């Protein structure tokens, strides 16, 4: 069993029909006032429907909207960038110091290894003194001969001469 308010709302929305409609209209005390109220309610409904619906943007509004969005986006991008710039205003930040220190250490180690390798290379290949040529003066020592010894155990090279003129002990003077 519908209440009067329910029947009234349904009548305003034209939801009543048949004997239900005729019964309800017969029960109205002032039929003309009710019809006027119904007409007002319909007008209000149409107005609300028209005004509250999403209306398409005009050209100017569309471009203004686009521009505003671009400005907002750029401003948003600039802000963190500005923040980053202020944070890097000092070049020697702690992470960079750490990186610079590590890099310097690595370069130092590489150079040290390079220098040590350069020093070790001759040690392995030519650790002994090499004699390129040796001769005794044939006029002063016509029987003079030269021999070369390499004492690898002591890493000493010896030039051994024979047949040189023997000198008196006076020649040992300082």
């Amino acid at each position, binding site marked *: 069993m519908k209440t009067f308010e329910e029947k009234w709302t349904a009548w305003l929305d034209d939801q009543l029909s048949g004997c239900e409609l005729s019964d309800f209209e017969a029960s109205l005390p002032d039929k003309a006032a009710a019809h006027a109220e119904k007409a007002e309610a319909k007008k209000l409904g149409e107005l609300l429907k028209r005004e509250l619906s999403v209306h398409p943007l005009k050209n100017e509004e569309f471009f203004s909207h686009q521009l505003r969005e671009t400005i907002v986006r750029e401003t948003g991008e600039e802000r963190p960038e500005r923040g980053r710039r202020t944070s890097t205003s000092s070049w020697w930040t702690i992470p*960079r110091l750490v990186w*610079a220190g590590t890099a310097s250490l690595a370069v130092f180690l590489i*150079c*040290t290894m390079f220098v040590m390798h350069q020093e070790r290379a001759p040690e392995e290949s030519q650790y002994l003194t090499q004699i*390129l040529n040796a*001769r005794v003066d044939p006029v002063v020592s016509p029987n003079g001969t030269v021999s070369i010894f390499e004492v690898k155990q002591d890493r*000493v090279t010896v030039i051994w001469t024979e047949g040189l003129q023997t000198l008196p002990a006076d020649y040992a*003077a300082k």
Partner: protein
Amino acid sequence: MHQSLAVAICVVLLTTTAARASRSAEKVWSGLVIAENVAEPQPIPSELTRIETLLKKFFGYNQLKVIGQSQKTLNTGQEDWLATSKFFGLHVDARGETQGGYVLNLKLYKEKELLLETEAKLSKRSPLVIKGPQVGGGQLLLVLVVQ
């Protein structure tokens, strides 16, 4: 980015320069030594201690006495110098640095008379010993050591 590159280049240059500088300027000791047998041998000069055993064993003398010496610092490897005693002179002419040593031209003079000439690549880790003439009861030795 540019700053870090500049810093890296500076570090490399400083490190390599320091490493190179630490390798240069070596001293060459050259000595005229009389090896002889005596009843009470004198202590051996410090420059010869490293090869004392070899010299005594090789030449058969118990005393090594320095009669002339010279110590030269080589900066360019092109220097020349003279180690002299009263009658002998050893002229050393460095003719450049090689990998691990120096090329030296050596001339032994008795007064103004050239007795011996040799060219050697003197290793920084290997002394050179030259047996010279017999002097009285002993033996003249020429010794070159990179210190």
